[in-house]
């Protein structure tokens, strides 16, 4: 504990350096902006800003990119409350009561509690990260290829289980992701695989153009001619500081939302969306007046907002301590770490303490910046929301194209982004979710290497995954997750889609 605190102070000396503070500010501001704007999310934003970070040192770059992740959670709530339209998928639940509060003239209190709640939860998750990540990394040093393989299988299974529509379709997306992710030179024999003689494919398909196509351009194509000028809540927003009664009602939900979000965010594959729904359902269940939910209950804003912020902190733990991303957003961050020449995994904390502790300290500072800046900036975000979507959509496309091209200075990446935008659109049209694809795309090569090494290690015995206790536990959990829906009509993700 004392060691962690000392390391955290060391982290603050890094995060407080002026250039790191500047990039943290840029990250949280960009995050809030994309959170506010419907049509582009943090995953695509991180991907398109990735090339711009190549001239920075890796610490500043990761500080900025992680700022986008948690900044987007703050921004998403603004659109949910003022427009009844979630700026981010993880802000859907905030619409239920946030917009009702706005209609009752309490938009200020809703925005206020959402900002304070996000700050409290963000702070909680930073401390959780400090306590848990190093411990988990120490534990994970003992992981061999079988444990890694089993953990990745568990992550992909959980993602499929939490799919809002068909679990089989989500698993198909995960398999497609593995297939696409493994294109390129074989990691062991260097044989070109599915490159069709194209040199550009020898290093595999880049994650950035794939994400920009799937999440950036595809979103614009889907909304062509649909979204016009946003109908923003017109009344003047006042009373951003929640009153004593608001705090009394919100303090319990804030604490429960933070705990739930953080611990669920730790699980590979869960992300920030599911915990938000669960936290809302929990508060409704615990409330003496559940009928107030959906009609402007402040608890219905406080709990999910705290929850989605804490969950983002939670998702950083498997990323930084195991090198395993649990969401599409952290999958891009993993890709970024690799591009910067860092090896994500249990040794990251030991080998690059300045990066690990610097980023954690910056997350605390970033949350503080968001709290201080966001409330006064709400009128600015409202004005941003009034920009017609026709302009925004063109700029989103332009940034995606620049982002795709500049990664390798190659127009092939633009073609890849265009192809994946069509793929993304068709997947949506036929109710396939793209998130498992992206996660498996990043995990695919790691999963393949772990599988092949495990088999070489065990002389071809697949029982190796069951003979080692940790991997056996992961595999058992995956099997339970896969089999459970066969015996029960209730599946978490499916339930969420109905509420959605």
């Amino acid at each position, binding site marked *: 504990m004392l060691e962690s605190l000392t390391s955290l102070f060391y982290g603050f000396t890094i995060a407080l350096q002026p250039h790191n503070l500047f990039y943290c500010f840029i990250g949280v501001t960009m995050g809030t902006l994309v959170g506010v704007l419907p049509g582009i999310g943090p995953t695509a934003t991180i991907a398109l800003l990735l090339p711009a970070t190549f001239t920075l040192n890796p610490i500043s770059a990761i500080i900025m990119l992680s700022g986008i992740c948690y900044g987007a959670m703050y921004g998403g709530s603004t659109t949910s409350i003022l427009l009844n339209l979630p700026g981010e998928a993880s802000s859907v639940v905030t619409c239920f009561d946030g917009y009702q509060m706005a209609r009752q003239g309490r938009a200020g209190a809703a925005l206020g509690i959402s900002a304070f709640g996000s700050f409290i939860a963000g702070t909680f998750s930073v401390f959780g990260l400090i306590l848990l990540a190093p411990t988990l990394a120490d534990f994970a040093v003992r992981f061999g290829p079988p444990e890694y393989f089993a953990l990745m299988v568990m992550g992909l299974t959980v993602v499929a289980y939490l799919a809002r529509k068909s679990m089989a379709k989500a698993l198909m997306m995960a398999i497609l992701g593995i297939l696409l992710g493994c294109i390129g030179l074989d990691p062991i024999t260097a044989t070109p*695989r599915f490159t069709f003689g194209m040199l550009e494919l020898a290093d595999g398909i880049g994650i950035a153009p794939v994400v920009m196509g799937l999440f950036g351009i595809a979103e614009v194509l889907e909304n062509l001619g649909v979204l016009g000028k946003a109908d923003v809540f017109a009344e003047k927003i006042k009373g951003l500081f929640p009153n004593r009664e608001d705090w009394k009602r919100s303090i319990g939900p804030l604490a429960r939302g933070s705990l739930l979000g953080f611990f669920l965010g730790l699980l590979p594959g869960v992300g920030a969306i599911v915990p938000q729904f669960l936290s809302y359902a929990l508060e409704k269940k615990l409330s003496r007046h559940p009928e107030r939910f959906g009609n402007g209950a402040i608890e219905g804003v406080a709990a999910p907002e705290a929850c989605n912020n804490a969950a983002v902190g939670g998702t950083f733990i498997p990323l930084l301590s195991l090198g395993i991303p649990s969401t599409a957003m952290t999958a891009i961050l993993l890709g970024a770490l690799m591009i910067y020449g860092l090896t994500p995994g249990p040794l990251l904390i030991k080998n690059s303490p300045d990066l690990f502790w610097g980023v954690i300290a910056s997350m605390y500072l970033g949350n503080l910046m968001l709290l201080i800046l966001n409330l006064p900036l709400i009128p600015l975000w409202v004005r941003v929301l009034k920009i017609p979507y026709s302009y925004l959509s063109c700029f989103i496309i332009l940034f995606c194209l620049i982002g795709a091209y500049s990664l390798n200075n190659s127009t092939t990446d633009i073609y890849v982004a265009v192809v994946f935008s*069509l793929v993304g659109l068709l997947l949506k049209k036929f109710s396939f979710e793209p998130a498992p694809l992206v996660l498996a795309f990043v995990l695919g090569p790691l999963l393949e290497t772990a599988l092949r090494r495990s088999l070489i290690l065990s002389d071809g015995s697949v029982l190796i995954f069951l003979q080692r206790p940790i991997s056996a536990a992961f595999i058992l959990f995956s099997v339970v997750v896969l089999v459970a829906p066969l015996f029960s009509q209730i599946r978490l993700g499916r339930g969420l889609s109905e509420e959605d």
Partner: protein
Amino acid sequence: MKKTRTITAGAGALFWVAVGLLACYGASRLGLGSITDPGAGFIFFWSGLVLVILALVVLAESIRSSEDATRGTGQLNWTKIALVLLSLVLYAFFLERLGFVLTTFVLLSFLLGCIEDTNWIKSLGTAGAAALVSYAVFELWLEIRLPKGFFGF
């Protein structure tokens, strides 16, 4: 209605089965290796096989279900989508030949003027400003090398 849905589901499943089988075929050409020493095609083969099985599961699900599988999005404007995709392919083709500023200006003018039906004067003004500002930000400030083309910008 049910018949159309079944045909759509069948066509979808057939597509995924084909993808899975192609992966298996390509994998077998790469060499599967053995279980003690997996080869370059090992992961592709097994993934392809699982994809085929899952495609059949999805087909069975769609036949049994009363939900329409093509309800994932609202009404899509396919003509506009095709035009945008074509313009992006042309953008990629001309980017290194004509340079960033000119190609971007033409693309944005087209997207704003033709696709989004914005007033032409506004479209041209916005496209010009956006092309120049993004060039300044990315090329000059962030030092990202953007293609110059034969005009030199």
